[in-house]
Protein backbone atom coordinates (compact mmCIF):
# COMPACT_ATOMS: atom_id res chain seq x y z
CA UNK A 1 0.00 0.00 0.00
CA UNK A 2 1.39 3.38 -0.89
CA UNK A 3 2.26 5.70 1.94
CA UNK A 4 1.01 9.26 1.38
CA UNK A 5 3.35 10.54 4.07
CA UNK A 6 6.36 9.30 2.10
CA UNK A 7 5.16 11.18 -0.95
CA UNK A 8 4.73 14.34 1.07
CA UNK A 9 8.22 13.97 2.45
CA UNK A 10 9.68 13.51 -1.01
CA UNK A 11 7.87 16.57 -2.36
CA UNK A 12 9.04 18.64 0.58
CA UNK A 13 12.61 17.42 0.12
CA UNK A 14 12.59 18.30 -3.56
CA UNK A 15 11.37 21.78 -2.89
CA UNK A 16 13.83 22.30 -0.09
CA UNK A 17 16.85 20.96 -1.95
CA UNK A 18 16.10 23.24 -4.83
CA UNK A 19 15.78 26.33 -2.65
CA UNK A 20 18.88 25.58 -0.56
CA UNK A 21 20.90 24.65 -3.63
CA UNK A 22 19.92 27.80 -5.46
CA UNK A 23 20.52 30.02 -2.44
CA UNK A 24 23.93 28.54 -1.65
CA UNK A 25 24.94 28.76 -5.29
CA UNK A 26 24.00 32.40 -5.29
CA UNK A 27 25.80 32.92 -1.99
CA UNK A 28 29.00 31.33 -3.25
CA UNK A 29 28.86 33.42 -6.38
CA UNK A 30 28.42 36.54 -4.32
CA UNK A 31 31.33 35.52 -2.10
CA UNK A 32 33.54 34.97 -5.10
CA UNK A 33 32.56 38.32 -6.54
CA UNK A 34 33.26 40.14 -3.30
CA UNK A 35 36.66 38.52 -2.84
CA UNK A 36 37.69 39.10 -6.43
CA UNK A 37 36.42 42.63 -6.65
CA UNK A 38 38.09 43.78 -3.49
CA UNK A 39 40.48 46.09 -5.29
CA UNK A 40 37.87 48.00 -7.16
CA UNK A 41 35.44 48.07 -4.24
CA UNK A 42 37.86 49.39 -1.70
CA UNK A 43 39.72 51.53 -4.19
CA UNK A 44 43.06 53.24 -4.19
CA UNK A 45 45.59 53.42 -1.48
CA UNK A 46 43.20 53.08 1.34
CA UNK A 47 43.25 55.11 4.51
CA UNK A 48 46.42 56.80 5.63
CA UNK A 49 47.93 55.72 8.93
CA UNK A 50 46.86 57.96 11.76
CA UNK A 51 48.28 58.80 15.11
CA UNK A 52 46.43 57.20 17.92
CA UNK A 53 45.68 58.34 21.45
CA UNK A 54 45.61 60.01 23.79
CA UNK A 55 46.51 56.87 25.64
CA UNK A 56 46.16 56.19 29.33
CA UNK A 57 49.57 54.67 29.89
CA UNK A 58 50.08 53.67 33.50
CA UNK A 59 53.08 55.08 35.30
CA UNK A 60 54.35 51.75 36.38
CA UNK A 61 53.45 48.65 38.27
CA UNK A 62 55.38 49.28 41.39
CA UNK A 63 58.60 47.74 40.22
CA UNK A 64 59.02 48.98 36.66
CA UNK A 65 58.32 52.39 35.28
CA UNK A 66 56.69 52.61 31.88
CA UNK A 67 57.77 55.35 29.54
CA UNK A 68 55.12 56.91 27.35
CA UNK A 69 56.56 56.68 23.85
CA UNK A 70 53.16 56.87 22.20
CA UNK A 71 53.93 60.33 20.82
CA UNK A 72 56.92 58.95 19.01
CA UNK A 73 55.26 56.08 17.21
CA UNK A 74 55.64 57.00 13.59
CA UNK A 75 54.81 53.95 11.53
CA UNK A 76 52.46 51.03 11.41
CA UNK A 77 54.41 47.89 12.26
CA UNK A 78 51.56 45.63 13.41
CA UNK A 79 48.34 45.42 11.43
CA UNK A 80 45.34 43.18 10.97
CA UNK A 81 43.79 42.00 7.76
CA UNK A 82 41.57 45.01 7.46
CA UNK A 83 44.48 47.43 7.54
CA UNK A 84 47.16 45.34 5.92
CA UNK A 85 47.65 47.89 3.23
CA UNK A 86 49.28 50.05 5.89
CA UNK A 87 51.87 47.41 6.80
CA UNK A 88 55.24 49.00 7.14
CA UNK A 89 57.46 47.61 9.81
CA UNK A 90 60.43 47.47 7.48
CA UNK A 91 59.93 50.23 4.91
CA UNK A 92 58.98 47.54 2.43
CA UNK A 93 55.35 46.99 3.30
CA UNK A 94 55.71 44.04 5.63
CA UNK A 95 54.32 43.99 9.15
CA UNK A 96 53.41 41.76 12.08
CA UNK A 97 49.93 40.27 11.94
CA UNK A 98 47.60 41.01 14.85
CA UNK A 99 45.88 37.71 14.30
CA UNK A 100 49.07 35.88 15.07
CA UNK A 101 49.61 37.71 18.31
CA UNK A 102 47.77 36.45 21.37
CA UNK A 103 44.82 38.77 21.76
CA UNK A 104 45.65 38.93 25.43
CA UNK A 105 47.85 41.79 24.31
CA UNK A 106 44.52 43.59 24.00
CA UNK A 107 42.99 45.75 21.30
CA UNK A 108 44.30 48.93 22.84
CA UNK A 109 47.33 48.96 25.05
CA UNK A 110 48.30 46.03 27.20
CA UNK A 111 51.01 45.22 29.67
CA UNK A 112 53.17 42.49 28.24
CA UNK A 113 55.72 40.56 30.26
CA UNK A 114 59.00 39.35 28.94
CA UNK A 115 59.01 35.57 29.29
CA UNK A 116 62.61 35.25 30.44
CA UNK A 117 62.76 37.67 33.30
CA UNK A 118 59.38 39.23 33.76
CA UNK A 119 60.23 42.72 32.59
CA UNK A 120 56.99 44.38 31.53
CA UNK A 121 56.32 46.55 28.50
CA UNK A 122 53.35 48.57 27.33
CA UNK A 123 52.32 46.99 24.07
CA UNK A 124 50.76 49.29 21.51
CA UNK A 125 47.50 49.03 19.57
CA UNK A 126 47.90 46.22 17.06
CA UNK A 127 45.00 46.79 14.74
CA UNK A 128 47.05 48.87 12.34
CA UNK A 129 44.57 51.69 12.49
CA UNK A 130 47.12 53.81 14.29
CA UNK A 131 50.87 54.03 14.31
CA UNK A 132 52.55 51.68 16.71
CA UNK A 133 56.32 51.52 16.18
CA UNK A 134 59.15 54.01 16.35
CA UNK A 135 61.46 54.11 13.35
CA UNK A 136 64.48 55.13 15.36
CA UNK A 137 66.06 58.28 14.01
CA UNK A 138 67.60 59.87 17.04
CA UNK A 139 64.21 60.36 18.65
CA UNK A 140 64.23 62.09 22.02
CA UNK A 141 62.34 60.19 24.71
CA UNK A 142 61.50 62.28 27.77
CA UNK A 143 61.83 60.22 30.95
CA UNK A 144 59.97 60.69 34.23
CA UNK A 145 62.94 61.87 36.25
CA UNK A 146 64.42 59.39 38.62
CA UNK A 147 67.30 57.07 39.28
CA UNK A 148 67.25 53.87 37.31
CA UNK A 149 69.70 51.03 37.00
CA UNK A 150 68.48 49.57 33.74
CA UNK A 151 66.67 50.70 30.62
CA UNK A 152 64.71 47.97 28.81
CA UNK A 153 63.56 48.25 25.24
CA UNK A 154 61.20 46.14 23.18
CA UNK A 155 61.92 46.07 19.50
CA UNK A 156 63.85 44.49 16.67
CA UNK A 157 66.28 45.40 13.93
CA UNK A 158 65.49 45.07 10.29
CA UNK A 159 68.41 43.11 8.91
CA UNK A 160 71.67 41.64 10.10
CA UNK A 161 73.25 42.08 13.51
CA UNK A 162 73.51 45.58 14.73
CA UNK A 163 76.89 47.20 15.09
CA UNK A 164 77.71 50.79 15.72
CA UNK A 165 74.18 51.49 16.70
CA UNK A 166 74.52 53.96 19.47
CA UNK A 167 72.03 55.70 21.62
CA UNK A 168 72.50 58.20 24.45
CA UNK A 169 71.32 58.60 28.01
CA UNK A 170 71.09 62.19 29.22
CA UNK A 171 71.13 62.92 32.95
CA UNK A 172 70.30 65.81 35.10
CA UNK A 173 73.14 68.32 35.21
CA UNK A 174 74.17 67.78 31.62
CA UNK A 175 75.93 64.42 31.97
CA UNK A 176 75.53 62.00 29.11
CA UNK A 177 76.50 58.40 28.47
CA UNK A 178 76.23 56.34 25.34
CA UNK A 179 75.14 52.75 24.89
CA UNK A 180 75.25 50.15 22.18
CA UNK A 181 71.84 48.90 21.31
CA UNK A 182 71.88 45.32 20.25
CA UNK A 183 68.73 43.82 18.74
CA UNK A 184 68.42 40.76 16.56
CA UNK A 185 66.76 40.95 13.15
CA UNK A 186 63.01 40.70 13.27
CA UNK A 187 62.81 37.89 10.75
CA UNK A 188 65.23 35.73 12.71
CA UNK A 189 68.83 35.94 13.83
CA UNK A 190 71.56 33.80 15.32
CA UNK A 191 70.89 34.54 18.96
CA UNK A 192 67.33 34.04 19.99
CA UNK A 193 67.79 34.26 23.70
CA UNK A 194 65.89 37.48 24.19
CA UNK A 195 62.74 36.72 22.26
CA UNK A 196 59.63 38.33 23.74
CA UNK A 197 57.29 37.03 21.11
CA UNK A 198 57.36 34.98 17.94
CA UNK A 199 54.52 35.64 15.54
CA UNK A 200 53.76 33.12 12.81
CA UNK A 201 52.12 35.37 10.31
CA UNK A 202 53.10 38.51 8.47
CA UNK A 203 51.51 40.69 5.87
CA UNK A 204 53.51 41.37 2.73
CA UNK A 205 53.26 44.40 0.50
CA UNK A 206 51.61 42.39 -2.28
CA UNK A 207 48.73 41.53 0.02
CA UNK A 208 49.71 37.93 0.72
CA UNK A 209 49.69 36.64 4.27
CA UNK A 210 52.36 34.00 4.73
CA UNK A 211 51.67 31.91 7.75
CA UNK A 212 52.72 28.62 9.23
CA UNK A 213 55.50 27.03 11.22
CA UNK A 214 58.25 28.38 8.97
CA UNK A 215 57.19 31.98 9.18
CA UNK A 216 58.70 33.94 12.02
CA UNK A 217 58.51 37.53 13.08
CA UNK A 218 60.23 38.29 16.36
CA UNK A 219 60.32 41.05 18.91
CA UNK A 220 63.27 41.15 21.26
CA UNK A 221 64.13 42.53 24.61
CA UNK A 222 67.23 44.66 24.88
CA UNK A 223 68.70 45.81 28.14
CA UNK A 224 70.96 48.78 28.74
CA UNK A 225 72.69 49.57 32.05
CA UNK A 226 72.32 53.00 33.45
CA UNK A 227 74.13 54.88 36.17
CA UNK A 228 71.70 54.82 39.07
CA UNK A 229 73.56 57.49 40.98
CA UNK A 230 72.46 60.13 38.54
CA UNK A 231 68.93 61.24 37.75
CA UNK A 232 67.94 60.23 34.22
CA UNK A 233 66.13 62.82 32.13
CA UNK A 234 66.16 61.79 28.55
CA UNK A 235 66.86 58.87 26.28
CA UNK A 236 68.08 59.45 22.74
CA UNK A 237 67.33 56.55 20.46
CA UNK A 238 69.87 55.50 17.85
CA UNK A 239 69.75 57.05 14.44
CA UNK A 240 68.92 55.03 11.44
CA UNK A 241 70.95 54.45 8.35
CA UNK A 242 70.77 57.39 5.95
CA UNK A 243 72.24 55.63 2.99
CA UNK A 244 69.96 55.32 0.04
CA UNK A 245 71.11 51.80 -0.73
CA UNK A 246 70.92 49.75 2.40
CA UNK A 247 72.28 46.57 0.93
CA UNK A 248 75.60 47.89 -0.06
CA UNK A 249 75.95 50.70 2.43
CA UNK A 250 79.21 51.23 4.17
CA UNK A 251 77.86 52.38 7.51
CA UNK A 252 76.62 48.91 8.31
CA UNK A 253 74.07 50.46 10.57
CA UNK A 254 70.90 48.49 10.71
CA UNK A 255 67.59 50.19 11.19
CA UNK A 256 65.99 49.69 14.52
CA UNK A 257 62.35 49.59 15.44
CA UNK A 258 61.35 50.15 19.05
CA UNK A 259 57.89 49.64 20.45
CA UNK A 260 58.22 50.30 24.15
CA UNK A 261 60.63 51.46 26.81
CA UNK A 262 60.57 50.39 30.44
CA UNK A 263 62.80 51.54 33.27
CA UNK A 264 64.02 49.55 36.22
CA UNK A 265 65.13 51.38 39.33
Amino acid at each position, binding site marked *: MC*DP*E*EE*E*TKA*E*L*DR*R*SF*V*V*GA*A*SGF*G*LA*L*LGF*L*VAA*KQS*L*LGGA*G*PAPIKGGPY*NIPQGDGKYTFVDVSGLWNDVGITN*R*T*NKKLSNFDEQGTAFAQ*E*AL*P*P*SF*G*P*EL*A*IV*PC*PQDGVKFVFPDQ*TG*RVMNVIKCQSDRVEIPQGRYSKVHMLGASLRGSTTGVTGFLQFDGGAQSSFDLYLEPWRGGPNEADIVLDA*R*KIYLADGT*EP*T*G*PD*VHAYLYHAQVSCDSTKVLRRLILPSGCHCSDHEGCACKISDIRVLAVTLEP
Partner: protein
Amino acid sequence: MVKISKTRTASQTLSFITINLGFIAGNTGIPLVILSCQFLKYRLFDCFFYVLQDGLFNSGAATAPKVAAPYLYTLAIALVLFVVMALFLGTAWCAWICPVGYVQDLLSKGRAKAGIGYFRIPDRFQKYVKPIKYIFLAAVIIISFGAALPWISNTKIRNSLYLPLCYVCPARALFVYLQIFLGILPATTDVPLLSIISFPIFLVGALLFRKGWCIICPNLGLLSFFHKLNAVSLFRRKVRCTKCGTCVRVCAMGAADLETQGDVSKPECIRCYDCMDHCPADKSRSTYFFKKKIAESKFPATRLRKELLVEA
Protein backbone atom coordinates in the same frame (compact mmCIF):
# COMPACT_ATOMS: atom_id res chain seq x y z
CA MET B 1 22.06 -0.85 16.36
CA VAL B 2 24.41 2.04 15.75
CA LYS B 3 22.89 5.24 16.87
CA ILE B 4 23.65 8.42 15.07
CA SER B 5 24.80 9.90 18.38
CA LYS B 6 27.99 7.90 18.07
CA THR B 7 28.69 9.51 14.70
CA ARG B 8 27.90 12.86 16.17
CA THR B 9 30.32 12.42 19.06
CA ALA B 10 32.99 11.37 16.60
CA SER B 11 32.31 14.47 14.53
CA GLN B 12 32.50 16.69 17.60
CA THR B 13 35.78 15.15 18.70
CA LEU B 14 37.23 15.50 15.23
CA SER B 15 36.24 19.13 14.94
CA PHE B 16 37.52 19.89 18.43
CA ILE B 17 40.92 18.48 17.51
CA THR B 18 40.93 20.14 14.11
CA ILE B 19 40.07 23.58 15.40
CA ASN B 20 43.02 23.37 17.76
CA LEU B 21 45.42 22.20 15.07
CA GLY B 22 46.56 25.71 14.34
CA PHE B 23 50.00 24.91 15.68
CA ILE B 24 50.48 22.58 12.74
CA ALA B 25 48.70 24.34 9.97
CA GLY B 26 48.58 27.96 11.08
CA ASN B 27 45.51 30.10 10.98
CA THR B 28 43.28 29.99 7.94
CA GLY B 29 41.46 33.15 8.88
CA ILE B 30 38.10 31.64 7.95
CA PRO B 31 35.50 32.50 10.56
CA LEU B 32 33.37 29.52 11.54
CA VAL B 33 29.81 30.01 12.73
CA ILE B 34 30.43 28.28 16.06
CA LEU B 35 32.05 29.40 19.28
CA SER B 36 35.62 28.75 18.20
CA CYS B 37 37.40 31.24 20.38
CA GLN B 38 39.46 33.98 18.74
CA PHE B 39 41.63 34.24 21.84
CA LEU B 40 43.20 30.83 21.47
CA LYS B 41 46.79 30.52 20.51
CA TYR B 42 47.23 28.21 17.52
CA ARG B 43 43.71 28.20 16.23
CA LEU B 44 42.83 26.95 12.77
CA PHE B 45 39.70 29.00 12.35
CA ASP B 46 38.47 32.32 13.58
CA CYS B 47 35.30 33.07 15.47
CA PHE B 48 32.55 34.64 13.42
CA PHE B 49 31.26 36.59 16.36
CA TYR B 50 34.68 38.15 16.87
CA VAL B 51 34.65 39.30 13.25
CA LEU B 52 31.10 40.56 13.66
CA GLN B 53 31.75 42.48 16.87
CA ASP B 54 35.09 43.79 15.70
CA GLY B 55 33.68 44.86 12.36
CA LEU B 56 30.71 46.63 13.95
CA PHE B 57 32.87 48.35 16.52
CA ASN B 58 35.43 49.54 14.00
CA SER B 59 32.79 50.69 11.55
CA GLY B 60 31.11 52.64 14.30
CA ALA B 61 34.43 54.13 15.42
CA ALA B 62 35.42 55.12 11.90
CA THR B 63 35.77 58.82 11.43
CA ALA B 64 34.77 58.80 7.80
CA PRO B 65 32.94 56.42 5.47
CA LYS B 66 36.19 55.83 3.63
CA VAL B 67 37.77 54.62 6.85
CA ALA B 68 34.80 52.40 7.65
CA ALA B 69 34.82 50.84 4.20
CA PRO B 70 37.41 48.11 4.80
CA TYR B 71 35.71 47.02 8.01
CA LEU B 72 32.32 46.91 6.38
CA TYR B 73 33.83 44.98 3.53
CA THR B 74 35.28 42.35 5.90
CA LEU B 75 31.95 42.21 7.66
CA ALA B 76 30.13 41.73 4.37
CA ILE B 77 32.37 38.85 3.37
CA ALA B 78 31.96 37.26 6.78
CA LEU B 79 28.18 37.58 6.54
CA VAL B 80 27.98 36.06 3.09
CA LEU B 81 30.25 33.25 4.26
CA PHE B 82 27.97 32.79 7.25
CA VAL B 83 24.93 32.55 5.02
CA VAL B 84 26.59 29.93 2.83
CA MET B 85 27.65 27.90 5.88
CA ALA B 86 24.20 28.21 7.41
CA LEU B 87 22.55 27.08 4.20
CA PHE B 88 24.84 24.11 4.17
CA LEU B 89 24.42 22.79 7.69
CA GLY B 90 21.96 25.12 9.38
CA THR B 91 21.69 24.62 13.10
CA ALA B 92 23.55 21.31 12.80
CA TRP B 93 26.72 23.38 13.28
CA CYS B 94 25.80 23.56 16.94
CA ALA B 95 25.45 19.88 17.77
CA TRP B 96 28.03 18.50 15.35
CA ILE B 97 30.92 20.93 15.36
CA CYS B 98 30.75 23.50 18.15
CA PRO B 99 33.32 22.71 20.85
CA VAL B 100 31.20 24.26 23.60
CA GLY B 101 28.44 21.83 22.69
CA TYR B 102 31.03 19.07 22.86
CA VAL B 103 32.02 20.02 26.39
CA GLN B 104 28.38 20.19 27.44
CA ASP B 105 27.71 16.72 26.08
CA LEU B 106 30.72 15.35 27.93
CA LEU B 107 29.54 16.95 31.15
CA SER B 108 26.05 15.47 30.65
CA LYS B 109 27.47 12.02 30.13
CA GLY B 110 29.50 12.36 33.31
CA ARG B 111 26.50 13.50 35.26
CA ALA B 112 24.35 10.62 33.99
CA LYS B 113 27.03 8.11 34.88
CA ALA B 114 27.08 9.53 38.39
CA GLY B 115 23.37 8.80 38.64
CA ILE B 116 22.27 12.42 38.97
CA GLY B 117 19.16 13.50 37.10
CA TYR B 118 18.52 16.78 35.30
CA PHE B 119 15.91 19.51 35.27
CA ARG B 120 13.61 19.52 32.30
CA ILE B 121 12.17 22.97 31.73
CA PRO B 122 8.40 22.41 31.93
CA ASP B 123 6.36 23.17 28.83
CA ARG B 124 4.67 26.17 30.41
CA PHE B 125 8.05 27.91 30.88
CA GLN B 126 9.50 27.03 27.49
CA LYS B 127 7.94 30.02 25.80
CA TYR B 128 9.74 32.41 28.15
CA VAL B 129 13.07 30.77 27.63
CA LYS B 130 13.05 30.68 23.86
CA PRO B 131 13.36 34.42 23.11
CA ILE B 132 16.44 34.80 25.33
CA LYS B 133 18.88 33.92 22.54
CA TYR B 134 17.45 36.61 20.28
CA ILE B 135 17.65 39.20 23.03
CA PHE B 136 21.24 38.17 23.67
CA LEU B 137 22.07 38.44 19.96
CA ALA B 138 20.46 41.86 19.70
CA ALA B 139 22.35 43.04 22.78
CA VAL B 140 25.69 41.91 21.35
CA ILE B 141 25.07 43.70 18.05
CA ILE B 142 23.73 46.88 19.63
CA ILE B 143 26.51 47.14 22.20
CA SER B 144 29.23 46.46 19.63
CA PHE B 145 28.00 49.11 17.25
CA GLY B 146 26.61 51.53 19.77
CA ALA B 147 29.67 51.61 21.99
CA ALA B 148 31.81 52.72 19.08
CA LEU B 149 29.69 55.72 18.15
CA PRO B 150 31.08 59.06 19.30
CA TRP B 151 28.66 59.62 22.18
CA ILE B 152 30.95 57.96 24.73
CA SER B 153 33.93 60.22 25.31
CA ASN B 154 35.75 58.14 27.86
CA THR B 155 37.96 55.80 25.87
CA LYS B 156 38.37 53.46 28.80
CA ILE B 157 34.64 52.77 29.07
CA ARG B 158 34.40 52.60 25.32
CA ASN B 159 37.19 50.08 25.08
CA SER B 160 35.72 47.96 27.85
CA LEU B 161 32.57 47.59 25.76
CA TYR B 162 34.59 46.21 22.89
CA LEU B 163 33.77 42.53 22.23
CA PRO B 164 30.86 42.23 24.67
CA LEU B 165 30.14 38.57 23.90
CA CYS B 166 33.73 37.59 24.56
CA TYR B 167 33.30 38.58 28.19
CA VAL B 168 30.72 35.87 28.84
CA CYS B 169 31.45 33.35 26.11
CA PRO B 170 32.09 29.92 27.62
CA ALA B 171 34.49 29.04 24.80
CA ARG B 172 36.92 31.62 26.13
CA ALA B 173 36.55 30.42 29.69
CA LEU B 174 36.88 26.77 28.73
CA PHE B 175 39.67 26.79 26.20
CA VAL B 176 41.69 29.88 26.96
CA TYR B 177 41.89 28.96 30.65
CA LEU B 178 43.00 25.51 29.55
CA GLN B 179 45.74 26.99 27.41
CA ILE B 180 46.87 29.22 30.25
CA PHE B 181 46.90 26.21 32.56
CA LEU B 182 48.94 24.24 30.07
CA GLY B 183 51.34 27.11 29.65
CA ILE B 184 50.58 27.62 25.98
CA LEU B 185 49.41 31.13 26.74
CA PRO B 186 51.36 33.23 29.24
CA ALA B 187 50.02 33.21 32.77
CA THR B 188 49.44 36.94 32.66
CA THR B 189 47.01 36.67 29.76
CA ASP B 190 44.12 39.04 30.15
CA VAL B 191 41.25 37.17 31.84
CA PRO B 192 38.34 39.51 32.50
CA LEU B 193 36.49 39.15 35.77
CA LEU B 194 33.17 38.73 33.98
CA SER B 195 34.60 35.78 32.10
CA ILE B 196 35.61 34.14 35.36
CA ILE B 197 32.14 34.69 36.81
CA SER B 198 30.32 33.37 33.78
CA PHE B 199 32.24 30.12 33.82
CA PRO B 200 30.57 28.52 36.86
CA ILE B 201 27.24 29.79 35.59
CA PHE B 202 27.91 27.93 32.35
CA LEU B 203 28.86 24.80 34.33
CA VAL B 204 25.69 24.95 36.37
CA GLY B 205 23.65 25.38 33.20
CA ALA B 206 25.35 22.44 31.53
CA LEU B 207 24.93 20.14 34.50
CA LEU B 208 21.42 21.09 35.55
CA PHE B 209 19.79 21.68 32.18
CA ARG B 210 21.80 19.40 29.84
CA LYS B 211 22.30 22.13 27.20
CA GLY B 212 21.93 25.24 29.30
CA TRP B 213 24.20 27.50 27.22
CA CYS B 214 22.81 26.36 23.88
CA ILE B 215 19.34 27.48 24.94
CA ILE B 216 20.53 31.09 25.29
CA CYS B 217 23.40 31.09 22.79
CA PRO B 218 23.36 34.08 20.41
CA ASN B 219 25.09 31.99 17.76
CA LEU B 220 22.07 29.71 17.71
CA GLY B 221 19.93 32.82 17.60
CA LEU B 222 21.68 33.80 14.38
CA LEU B 223 21.68 30.30 12.87
CA SER B 224 18.06 29.71 13.77
CA PHE B 225 16.98 32.05 11.00
CA PHE B 226 18.06 29.25 8.71
CA HIS B 227 16.59 26.41 10.72
CA LYS B 228 14.26 25.30 7.93
CA LEU B 229 16.27 26.73 5.07
CA ASN B 230 19.17 24.32 5.10
CA ALA B 231 20.24 21.00 3.70
CA VAL B 232 19.82 18.98 6.90
CA SER B 233 16.14 18.25 7.36
CA LEU B 234 14.21 16.38 10.03
CA PHE B 235 10.87 14.78 9.33
CA ARG B 236 8.20 13.19 11.49
CA ARG B 237 5.54 10.95 10.03
CA LYS B 238 2.34 11.19 12.03
CA VAL B 239 0.93 7.77 11.18
CA ARG B 240 4.10 5.94 12.18
CA CYS B 241 4.42 7.85 15.45
CA THR B 242 3.02 6.13 18.55
CA LYS B 243 3.01 9.39 20.55
CA CYS B 244 5.00 7.72 23.28
CA GLY B 245 6.36 11.13 24.35
CA THR B 246 9.98 10.01 24.38
CA CYS B 247 11.17 12.70 21.96
CA VAL B 248 9.59 15.45 24.06
CA ARG B 249 11.22 14.11 27.20
CA VAL B 250 14.62 13.58 25.65
CA CYS B 251 15.00 16.83 23.72
CA ALA B 252 17.27 19.08 25.75
CA MET B 253 16.32 22.14 23.71
CA GLY B 254 12.55 21.81 24.03
CA ALA B 255 12.25 21.55 20.26
CA ALA B 256 10.15 18.35 20.05
CA ASP B 257 6.41 18.17 20.26
CA LEU B 258 3.77 15.65 19.36
CA GLU B 259 1.61 17.75 17.07
CA THR B 260 3.89 19.03 14.30
CA GLN B 261 4.31 16.68 11.40
CA GLY B 262 6.29 16.67 8.20
CA ASP B 263 9.24 19.03 8.56
CA VAL B 264 9.49 19.36 12.32
CA SER B 265 12.52 21.61 12.57
CA LYS B 266 12.18 24.32 15.17
CA PRO B 267 14.41 27.36 15.75
CA GLU B 268 15.78 25.57 18.80
CA CYS B 269 16.50 22.27 17.08
CA ILE B 270 20.28 21.81 16.86
CA ARG B 271 20.05 18.42 15.11
CA CYS B 272 21.48 16.45 18.01
CA TYR B 273 19.13 13.62 16.95
CA ASP B 274 18.45 12.44 20.50
CA CYS B 275 14.79 12.32 19.51
CA MET B 276 15.50 10.07 16.54
CA ASP B 277 17.85 7.78 18.43
CA HIS B 278 15.34 7.16 21.19
CA CYS B 279 12.22 7.01 19.03
CA PRO B 280 10.98 3.42 19.13
CA ALA B 281 8.68 3.65 16.12
CA ASP B 282 10.12 2.39 12.86
CA LYS B 283 10.59 5.10 10.25
CA SER B 284 8.75 7.70 12.29
CA ARG B 285 11.57 10.25 12.44
CA SER B 286 14.02 10.55 9.63
CA THR B 287 16.72 12.95 8.58
CA TYR B 288 18.00 13.82 5.15
CA PHE B 289 20.96 15.68 3.75
CA PHE B 290 19.65 17.36 0.61
CA LYS B 291 17.69 14.38 -0.74
CA LYS B 292 19.71 11.54 0.71
CA LYS B 293 18.40 9.81 3.81
CA ILE B 294 21.02 9.74 6.56
CA ALA B 295 19.19 7.93 9.33
CA GLU B 296 15.78 7.18 10.72
CA SER B 297 14.24 5.91 13.91
CA LYS B 298 14.13 2.19 14.53
CA PHE B 299 12.71 -0.15 17.13
CA PRO B 300 15.37 -0.49 19.84
CA ALA B 301 16.10 -4.19 19.48
CA THR B 302 18.56 -5.48 22.04
CA ARG B 303 21.19 -8.02 21.35
CA LEU B 304 19.82 -10.92 23.31
CA ARG B 305 22.04 -12.31 25.99
CA LYS B 306 23.77 -15.62 25.45
CA GLU B 307 21.38 -17.69 27.56
CA LEU B 308 18.50 -16.58 25.45
CA LEU B 309 20.09 -17.37 22.12
CA VAL B 310 19.25 -20.61 20.39
CA GLU B 311 21.98 -22.98 19.30
CA ALA B 312 21.66 -23.20 15.56
